[in-house]
């Protein structure tokens, strides 16, 4: 295995300290109250916007990113140079039409693309927070986004939309600030993280913790990176984002650049070399400690538990219009998880639509070109815009 897991000269922590995005700074008197029980201050949140806020300030859309996503939803990524991660759904003429709506996408608290997280400098020590950073919850992320909207002068959202961990944030938004969300679209997500999902995350975290370069989370002080651990974590997670039919179609058992197996632990199979590539490129853009914190935030998410064990209570009296979407081959957040949300919304008499998109692309389908998802989103969002008079 000759491939190095970290290219020399790439610094995934650089965006954490000097982001190439607009940043809202909150001082010592504007602390973010964290569920873990401490106030984070000072702190900052990095974000990107697209489109124009109308005079009535009624056309704002908050896009919530997934676990390893970031604020670069429609703009070119500053580290990878790749196009925005949701250009199929967000952009001019797309369902989230940036010609009509003002789109905001912020990097979540605990991440590493400019919002305060474990790779940020701790003002108390002058070093990176590392594990001194408080544990983050989905509710903390949403609280931070709400403070950003206050700063931007946006009272309420026309639409809150996101997939996977982003979908969790959408649900939390609808539960925490029902009066601030006109329409909500949680995609490929659940109201809680399942035991199986926690188990997968734990494998990833243990890979990072076991990397000798992790140094108890103080690797930035030492000048190393737990690149192998983070790469392995990403490889494992990536498998859960796909599906067996998609893997089979893309790779099968085909060999990589050879006609016969080498009888070694080289990446003989295409799927192996693909996963190694995924691991390497991830390490270039993501901070290992941030990965620990964000996976933990997803694990802790249980919206029903926060409301006396009854999910419907999270949405009691809501006037938000919901559109829930799942994918048939998603085994990370299977359709049953979405149905549980739909049932709770029904019990709360909320206006809810639900679409199960037939796809063999697994959990990742929400990021990919799925015409059925795009047309359903277009229909729901356009109708909601009519209702709001946009």
């Amino acid at each position, binding site marked *: 295995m000759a491939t190095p897991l970290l290219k020399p000269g790439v610094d995934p922590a650089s965006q954490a300290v000097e982001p190439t995005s607009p940043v809202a700074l909150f001082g010592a008197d504007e602390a973010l109250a964290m569920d873990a029980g401490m106030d984070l201050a000072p702190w900052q949140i990095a974000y990107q916007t697209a489109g124009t806020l109308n005079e009535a300030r009624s056309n704002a859309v908050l896009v919530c990113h997934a676990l390893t996503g970031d604020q670069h939803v429609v703009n070119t990524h500053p580290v990878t140079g790749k196009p925005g991660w949701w250009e199929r759904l967000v952009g001019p003429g797309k369902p989230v039409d940036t010609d009509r709506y003002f789109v905001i996408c912020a990097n979540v608290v605990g991440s590493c693309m400019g919002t305060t997280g474990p790779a940020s400098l701790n003002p108390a020590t002058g070093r990176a927070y590392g594990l001194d950073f408080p544990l983050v919850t989905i509710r903390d992320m949403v609280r931070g986004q709400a403070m950003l909207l206050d700063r931007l002068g946006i009272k309420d959202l026309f639409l809150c939309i996101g997939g996977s961990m982003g979908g969790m944030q959408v649900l939390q938004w609808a539960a925490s600030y029902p009066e601030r969300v006109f329409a909500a679209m949680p995609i490929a997500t659940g109201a809680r993280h399942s035991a199986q999902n926690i188990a997968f995350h734990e494998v990833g975290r243990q890979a990072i913790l076991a990397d000798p370069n992790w140094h108890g989370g103080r690797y930035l002080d030492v000048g190393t990176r737990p690149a192998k651990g983070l790469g392995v974590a990403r490889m494992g997670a990536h498998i859960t984002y796909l599906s067996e039919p998609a893997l089979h179609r893309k790779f099968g058992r085909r060999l990589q650049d050879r006609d016969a197996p080498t009888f070694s632990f080289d990446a003989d199979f295409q799927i192996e070399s693909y996963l190694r590539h995924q691991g390497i490129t991830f390490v270039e853009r993501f901070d290992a400690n941030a990965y620990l914190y964000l996976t933990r935030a997803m694990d802790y998410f249980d919206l029903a538990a926060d409301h006396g064990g009854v999910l419907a209570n999270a949405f009691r009296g809501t006037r938000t219009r919901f559109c829930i979407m799942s994918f048939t081959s998603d085994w990370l957040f299977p359709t049953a998880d979405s149905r549980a949300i739909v049932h709770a919304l029904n019990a709360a008499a909320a206006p*809810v639509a639900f679409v199960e998109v037939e796809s063999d692309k697994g959990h990742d389908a929400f990021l990919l070109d799925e015409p059925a998802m795009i047309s359903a989103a277009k229909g729901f969002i356009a109708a909601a815009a009519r*209702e709001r008079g946009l």
Partner: protein
Amino acid sequence: MNVTASLAPAGLPQDATGSARIDHLVMLNLVEPGSRVLDVGCGDGSLLALLRDRRGVDGRGIELSREGVNACLAHGLPVIQGDADTDLAAYPDDAFDYVILSQTIQATRQPKEVLEHLLRIGRHAIVSFPNFGHWRVRSELMLRGRMPVTDTLPDPWYATPNIHHCTIRDFVGLCRLVGARIERASALDASGHPMRFALPWWVWNLVGTQGVFLLRRG
């Protein structure tokens, strides 16, 4: 028969000549303005849209097909992709004023359980279905010995989604079995119009192509 009233065609809206289906307009007349309605098997949402636009109804739908769900979404209707046989169990008691099952009960696997759910979830249930007792259906079977293909039953036997056909009389029997009170009932003729006079059941059962029932928990 504890039929309290039959549907009078005079009750049809004046603009009944529009694009709306006549059986939809019949149902429109059964629903009080401003009520909460669940349409099970709502198709493209045309009945829900009609109820919303003409009756100010807060409507919801359940539909099996993605095409139907997408059409509903585009009309701004909150519709859930799902199956009447499995999804109704998740709805709480008394969640709606009316639960509508339009031309769908014959396609369910468990019509009796579905009907019981309707009566539990809604204060009222409205059910319409193709009448397998219609004389043309009977004559196809009796004279030609073949499964009937008619306007209300357009599919050949091997391609029909309908698995539990019933006649108007059968349905009345099912209502009695599950303890449903028939508040209003009607049969529609071949052109989909409510039949003009309060006729005896056996006539409806013979010449009605569809039955439309407004039910209430016993």
